[in-house]
């Protein structure tokens, strides 16, 4: 981009005065670049990163589904049919006897000869018709969760789900059922709300820590800088996982789900702010020497204003990119902790909590569909990585 812009200006210089340039010679594209704002340049650069674009769509889709999880999931996270323990996935078929009729096949069981347990399998002779906007269990959409008087009355009760069996008493396990006969597909969707928000809150917390400590370090320099840098180096050289395990393991078992959720978020944030603090410090150090900062300072701008309206805006984009790259680590951290059984606990559902069941390889071998939440994790982590990569490239559009 640099080359083309400068080429353009060279052309202008070479053009003798008083000669009008025919409009078709004018490179409108380059003129647009000359007058574009920084955010426009970033947007254009970002748009060129194909993989990052796709990833942005995927990430937005994930969050959209997470927000309206009750609608997208055919069942509630706690809905179960005790009978259909570990029933296998029932794939969707579109045609029945040549006519278009979306359906899943029913389930049938045989008895295990030794343990007399029911072993479910898909029975091709039964047809369970499915449809969009099917009736299922009731749920609320609105602001009922805010717990604020009056505002919490703002909700509607709905019983339609994006997809579901026409007769709501018939089973539809698109990705199979778990040990209590709960639908893995639905639980996966409900989990996304917890798993994705842990990442967001964790990143927000570590952003605050990172900006404050990194900023102090970069701005004040001297002793403060040395102490904070030492602290960061120490934190980076210690394997954090055992310490995270240690803190998480001693969370009292009688704590409420919400408190456990917050302590896990804090643990995740506490162990990951160091990277951001380094970025912020580096930026502050280099910005301190910039002419426009000097100009502002000579103009008598106060320190607070200097930081928040001159320095910070010039590297918002870098912060956003760093945060996007930090998010997948948070999601993986929560998944790992919950998987080991020291993170979030049932009845809270997260992808890690769901994966707990796969800890025993024998269970996993019999019911491989329990691994589906892993697919959700991998896709969203990949998407965040590509997105963060694209943002990082776009953050410096010149």
């Amino acid at each position, binding site marked *: 981009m640099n080359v083309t812009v400068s080429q353009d200006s060279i052309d202008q210089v070479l053009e003798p005065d008083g000669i009008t340039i025919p409009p078709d010679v004018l490179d409108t594209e380059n003129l647009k670049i000359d007058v574009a704002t920084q955010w426009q340049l970033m947007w254009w650069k970002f748009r060129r990163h194909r993989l990052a674009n796709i990833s942005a769509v995927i990430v937005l889709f994930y969050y959209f589904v997470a927000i309206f999880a009750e609608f997208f999931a055919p069942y509630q996270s706690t809905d179960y049919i005790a009978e259909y323990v570990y029933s296998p996935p029932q794939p969707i078929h579109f045609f029945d006897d040549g006519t278009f009729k979306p359906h899943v096949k029913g389930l049938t069981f045989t008895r295990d000869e030794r343990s007399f347990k029911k072993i479910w399998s898909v029975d091709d002779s039964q047809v369970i018709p499915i449809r969009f906007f099917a009736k299922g269990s009731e749920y609320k959409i609105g602001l009922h969760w805010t717990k604020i008087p009056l505002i919490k009355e703002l909700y509607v009760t709905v019983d339609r789900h994006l997809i579901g069996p026409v007769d709501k008493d018939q089973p539809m396990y698109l990705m199979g059922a778990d040990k209590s006969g709960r639908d893995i597909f639905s639980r996966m969707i409900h989990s996304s709300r917890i798993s994705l928000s842990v990442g967001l809150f964790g990143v927000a917390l570590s952003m605050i820590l990172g900006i404050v400590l990194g900023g102090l370090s970069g701005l004040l320099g001297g002793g403060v800088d040395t102490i904070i840098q030492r602290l960061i180096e120490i934190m*980076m050289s210690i394997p954090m996982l*055992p310490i995270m395990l240690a803190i998480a393991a001693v969370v009292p078992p009688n704590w409420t789900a919400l408190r456990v959720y917050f302590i896990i978020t804090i643990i995740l944030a506490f162990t990951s702010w160091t990277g951001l603090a380094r970025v912020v410090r580096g930026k502050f150090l280099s910005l301190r020497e910039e002419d426009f900062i000097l100009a502002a300072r000579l103009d008598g701008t106060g320190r607070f204003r200097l930081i928040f309206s001159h320095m910070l805006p010039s590297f918002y984009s870098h912060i956003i990119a760093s945060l996007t790259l930090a998010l997948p680590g948070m999601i993986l951290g929560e998944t*790992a902790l919950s998987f080991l059984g020291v993170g979030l606990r049932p009845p809270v559902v997260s992808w890690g909590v769901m994966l707990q069941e*796969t800890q025993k390889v024998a269970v996993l071998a019999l019911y491989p569909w329990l691994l589906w939440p892993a697919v959700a994790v991998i896709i969203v982590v990949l998407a965040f990585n590509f997105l963060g990569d694209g943002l990082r490239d776009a953050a410096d559009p010149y």
Partner: protein
Amino acid sequence: MWQYLARRFVYMIFTIWIISLVSFAVIQLPPGDYVTSMISQMYASGGQNMPPEYIAQLREQYGLDQPLHLQYFKWIRKIVLHGEFGYSFIYREDSREMIFARLPVTFAISAFSMLFIWIMAIPIGVFSAAHQYSIGDYVFTFIGFIGLAVPSFLMALILMFISYKYFDRAMIGLFSVEYADAPWSIEKFIDMLKHLWIPVIIIGTGGTAGMIRTMRANLLDELNRPYVDTARAKGVSENRLLWKYPVRHALNPFVSTIGWVLPGLVGGEVIVSVVLNLPTSGPVIFDSLMKQDMYMAAGFILMVSTLTVIGTFISDLLLVWLDPRIRLT
């Protein structure tokens, strides 16, 4: 030079001291103390209520009635002077035995993973940089990203599932049955090497992705330097051109990455070992935390972190030795 060494060394000691404080805090984390858990354990195994005088005597014996800083001092002094990490009430012996039995395996796996990362990342990174934007570059980048996105414990799960389902044996453990309880010998070591590659690949894959990208970016920077053009103008062959200087330059930051890769590897080792049930530190740390065998947990955290910090220190020294451009400020 010596001044730099001395300062790094002092920093390292300081870091280790902070680590020891953190590890000691781990012991204090659970409500109650060692004696409380001992009493409840005795109670659970059918013992009678202990008289309060005896409890007080126990507290005194273990020094639990003293203020915290004295307790810390006692704990750390025992470790430094006698190598005693405190009594583990799961294994009914000093934690030392377990720590020294398991720690070497953890570090063997971490070191091999580091090697694996290099062996994979250097050629791939060089290829990606030399053939920038080629199909191969994209394929490797993509595979690298998948390696980054699949957490090690999931990869362990998936590999375990595949081996269980299709090869009819679980890839659990680090030794064949006949060597599991045998004393260390050359045969046992070779047997371990045969099993080692699975955790090594699982743990190494995550780090490889980042390393490929570092290598690629470093090498691309080098390839744009004027000396490369000069060499090309002189007619140096492309291969020689690539390997003679730019790759060697690009390799330097690799050594410094040991510092930030090693803690991640050790952490990854802990969690993968829990999944694969390897006889390394991971399962013991996890188990002792679950059962609140705090001296064992703290001892492991202290030793694992300390060795990691020492590893980082050595990598810093290596870097100075390798890259004379780094002047010691």
